[in-house]
């Protein structure tokens, strides 16, 4: 493998990072909305959020990307592939983060909400100053676990034809006929991204368990 091919892989890595960042950032916004809807106490909103979560947790990410990709094209939107892929990852991340954060919001002791109500805090203040700060702490290990899933999941954009790290790898291995070397390197790059996050998530979880005792 020569220097140019290696640089090409790093160029793919850049897109993997960008896709993960966009999916996670926009997915967090969507996920917060889903989690709040899911715990709102209003039946319509709760059912809608639950259906959205069930749809995205019960189907393969690859199919979600396909449907969004072709669906947006049908709707007459001429979008860059990376825009439709980003929308796909955002919807995916929104459902998973929404479910994780719903659990965390419900894990905050009830007395906290009741105390906030007794102090006559409105919904917004109650969420912003009492519930969410505690829920975020509880949710952090699972959120980081999902971020790792998301980074690995961005590799599926390769099947759609988007040149991120995995597709850059298959392109290079088609040139130099050393698939194992190139794939090994590509996987090592993913590992270098994901492993520190996994270790950090495990550490946070241990700390959280100790704190709860």
């Amino acid at each position, binding site marked *: 493998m020569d220097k140019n091919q290696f640089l090409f892989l790093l160029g793919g890595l850049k897109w993997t990072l960008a896709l993960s960042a966009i999916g996670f950032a926009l997915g967090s916004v969507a996920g917060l909305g889903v989690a709040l809807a899911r715990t709102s106490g209003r039946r319509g909103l709760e059912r809608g959020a639950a259906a959205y979560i069930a749809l995205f947790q019960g189907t393969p990410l690859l199919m979600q990307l396909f449907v969004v990709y072709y669906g947006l094209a049908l709707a007459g939107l001429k979008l860059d592939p990376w825009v439709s892929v980003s929308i796909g990852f955002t919807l995916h991340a929104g459902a998973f983060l929404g479910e994780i954060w719903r659990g965390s919001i419900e894990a905050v002791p009830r007395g906290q909400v009741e105390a906030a109500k007794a102090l006559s805090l409105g919904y917004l203040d109650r969420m912003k100053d009492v519930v969410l700060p505690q829920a975020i702490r509880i949710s952090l290990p699972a959120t980081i676990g999902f971020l790792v899933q998301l980074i690995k999941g961005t590799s*599926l954009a390769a099947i759609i034809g988007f040149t991120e790290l995995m597709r850059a790898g298959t392109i290079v291995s088609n040139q130099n006929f050393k698939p194992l070397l190139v794939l090994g390197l590509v996987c090592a790059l993913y590992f270098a991204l994901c492993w520190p996050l996994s270790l950090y998530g495990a550490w946070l979880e241990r700390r959280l368990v100790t704190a709860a005792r």
Partner: protein
Amino acid sequence: MNYKFDFGPVIEGLPELLWGCAGTLGLALSGMVLALIIGIGGVLLRDSRLASLRWLVIAFVEAIRNTPFLGQIYFVFFALPMVGIRLDPTLTAIIALGVNGGAYAIEIIRGGVQSINKGQVEAGLALGLSRTLIFRLIVLKPALRAIFPSLTSQFIMLTLTTSIASAISAYELTSVGQAIETNTFRSFEVYGVVTLLYLAMSWMLMQMFARINARFLLYPVK
């Protein structure tokens, strides 16, 4: 929007798609059996007296859990022929799924084994229960009860993961859908229906596992 939906080709291809579903479930099931074998073997090695074996298992689990499945399946696809093993794509996919699921199974089963309190086994001995009864009632059932939810949700995840095996054209639902799509160009309709079929499969599996759990594993604690 002036696109006219045409589900005709999808309805014509429905029998093929249903066979694809069977392929998906077969792939997931065989992958899970392999994953359980790797999982049980891994747990035994994980607590081995040889430090090198323990580290090998830890390295395996971390390597698999922190790299994408697409990379793993490509790797198996290219690596097997190099060591002289020629398998068709579906068998290759089963191996990749088993290895991937195995890493997760190791962690799940290990958690279940660790959840068994040694004092309970001793209490069983003190009550004069036979060894088989102790194993059945005090070791196996609580351990199964502890790992059943995570193991079954892992199985559903594995079922959804099989769609990635279409990348090496293994026989399963996604690749059947892709074949229909290339012949008819009805991409949205085909993948929409395929997605709903996956949803139906994961829903059915969820119901089935919940029933099994309620029928055989749930009993009042305390």
